[in-house]
């Protein structure tokens, strides 16, 4: 099936003419050991249908029981998103027919989500803070996985039949729904991306999910509509499903802005529909039109009693919440005394944990930043790896800086030692010994080199002796060269001046 040519308007022109409004639904798979409503193990990548129970298969008569840990994780997420936690809430059946939902309904929450009315402050690339309002976060279960067999592309169209694996069916999910996100203007794609990325960081900080995008632990549906001006009523939206990387979230918003703008500019209307995201081409195509098929006939789940988290329990969970990423970053910036731009670079480079560990091992914050954002950042870039994947630990950097602080290494030698550490030659101390890189601090050895240099440049000695200290650098340079850089330049200077002064 070939897709018809789609008219697009350049992104910049589109946002100059229209005001984009986004809305994002994020599903996160919780990292509980068992499923939401049965004790089958929550696994990834196991043999098909080997982590299932009568409940996750939807066998007749099977009765669900709520996983208490999943409820606690959902409350943690709600609290981290500044939500109110429901005094009481219940599950509901969302009825639809699809092979990956064996019961013919998904157990979800409808009119009574466990968490509601929150917000999340996200930081954009230039440090701007943008507040995203959260409408609700509710508990539900994941579906099984369909594999389409036959047909040319492995996609659903043209498939002869499908195979279903229910290992994923019933894994606990929390779905987080934003209110319409207005006021982002041309930065809507960046806001969308930063929001999903911030959520991912929070899931990890809370310890409620591994939140691995590539495994589909976190999945985003991106709603987008355009309107003439920020004062106009909301336009008709499309919902692009299953956009599963940060970069794709940003691209999907950009693409839909350009596509919808072209339709509206030509006098057309937007069809309210779901759209499919195509990672390879960076485009979306029409899916299901929202209509009667949307009637899920929700009703309260009769097999599960309400969840009514006591206020004492909620407060206990709140008091046990770890520090959120943005709060931690602000605290560390203030403790470390970094400028805003410096801190931003540290965060963007993924160096915050590494610097924290280096500082904890005894290094001054400025020196820790100098290493990780300087030599080590360059090395990581050259090798095309992440900083944390370099063959050096924060403790080793602290050891290296300790050698500099104690005068046993100068900066140049320290860089050579680091080179050795990165090459796998051992700890800084071992590299110093193995490569013989220590600063020459033995005055006797230095004086011998200084005397040789003085003898070789009598004209310089004469100038210095007559009170012109300028040319003394030539002597120091000669000494450094003679000691292969392994001398402390400050000590050499002191000795040279002393030598010339007392010699005559």
């Amino acid at each position, binding site marked *: 099936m070939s897709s018809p040519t789609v008219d697009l308007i350049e992104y910049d022109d589109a946002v100059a003419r229209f005001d984009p409004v986004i809305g994002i639904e994020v599903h996160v798979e919780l990292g509980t050991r*068992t499923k939401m409503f049965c004790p089958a193990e929550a696994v990834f990548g196991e*043999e*098909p249908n080997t982590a299932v129970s009568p409940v996750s298969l939807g066998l007749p008569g099977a009765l669900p029981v709520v996983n208490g840990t999943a409820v606690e994780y959902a409350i943690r997420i709600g609290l981290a998103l500044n939500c109110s936690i429901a005094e009481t809430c219940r599950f509901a059946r969302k009825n639809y027919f699809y092979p990956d939902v064996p019961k013919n309904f998904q157990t979800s929450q409808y009119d009574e989500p466990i968490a509601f009315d929150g917000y999340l402050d996200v930081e954009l690339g230039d440090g701007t803070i943008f507040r995203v309002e959260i409408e609700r976060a509710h508990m539900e279960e994941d579906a099984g996985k369909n594999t389409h067999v036959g047909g040319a592309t492995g996609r659903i169209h043209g498939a002869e039949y499908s*195979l279903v*694996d229910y290992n994923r069916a019933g894994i606990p999910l929390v779905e987080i729904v934003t209110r319409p996100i207005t006021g982002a203007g041309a930065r809507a794609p960046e806001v969308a991306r930063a929001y999903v990325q911030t959520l991912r960081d929070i899931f990890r900080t809370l310890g409620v999910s591994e939140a691995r995008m590539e495994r589909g632990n976190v999945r985003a549906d991106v709603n987008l509509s355009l309107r003439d001006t920020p004062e106009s009523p909301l336009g008709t939206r499309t919902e692009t499903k299953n956009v599963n990387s940060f970069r794709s979230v940003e691209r999907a918003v950009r693409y839909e802005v350009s596509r919808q703008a072209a339709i509206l500019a030509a006098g057309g209307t937007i069809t309210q529909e779901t759209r499919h995201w195509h990672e390879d081409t960076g485009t979306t195509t029409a*899916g299901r039109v929202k209509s009667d098929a949307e009637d899920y006939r929700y009703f309260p789940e009769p097999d599960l009693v309400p969840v009514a988290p006591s206020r004492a329990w909620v407060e206990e969970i709140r008091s046990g919440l770890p520090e959120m990423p943005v709060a931690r970053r602000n605290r560390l910036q203030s403790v470390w005394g970094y400028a805003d731009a410096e801190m931003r670079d540290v965060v963007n480079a993924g160096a915050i944990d590494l610097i924290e560990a280096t500082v904890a091992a005894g290094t001054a914050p400025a020196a820790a930043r100098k290493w990780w954002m300087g030599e080590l950042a360059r090395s990581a870039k050259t090798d095309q790896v992440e900083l944390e994947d370099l063959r050096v630990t924060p403790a080793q950097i602290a050891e290296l800086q300790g050698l500099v602080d104690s005068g046993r290494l100068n900066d140049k030698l320290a860089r050579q030692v680091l080179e050795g550490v990165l090459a796998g030659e051992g700890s800084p101390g071992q590299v110093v010994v193995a490569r013989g890189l220590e600063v020459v601090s033995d005055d006797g050895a230095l004086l011998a080199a200084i005397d040789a240099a003085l003898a070789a440049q009598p004209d310089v000695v004469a100038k210095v002796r007559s009170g012109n200290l300028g040319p003394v650098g030539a002597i120091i340079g000669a000494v450094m060269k003679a000691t292969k850089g392994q001398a402390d330049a400050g000590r050499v200077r002191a000795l040279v001046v002393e030598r010339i002064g007392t010699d005559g």
Partner: protein
Amino acid sequence: MSTLSRDEVARVAALARIDLTPDELDRLAGELDVIVESVARVSEVATPDVPATSHPLPLTNVFRADVPEPSLPIADVLRSAPASEDGKFLVPQILGEE
């Protein structure tokens, strides 16, 4: 007084994937109407200050510990499946996504 039309019954049946004959639609519209009217009489008694009841049992927070139990053996899992392949349930062609 009929509150439930034949068309509404047909629509709900279609959503539930229940294939009803014209005769069945006529009969069920009448029968379901009796049920709807009975429920309506309850609404007359229930004043706005009476909260809706979805669960008759006075129970909340029935939770299970997050401790895994062994999976059903794969042979049992697939025993009732009309068809399977590579340990997966084989289902007919799916028309339309979602």
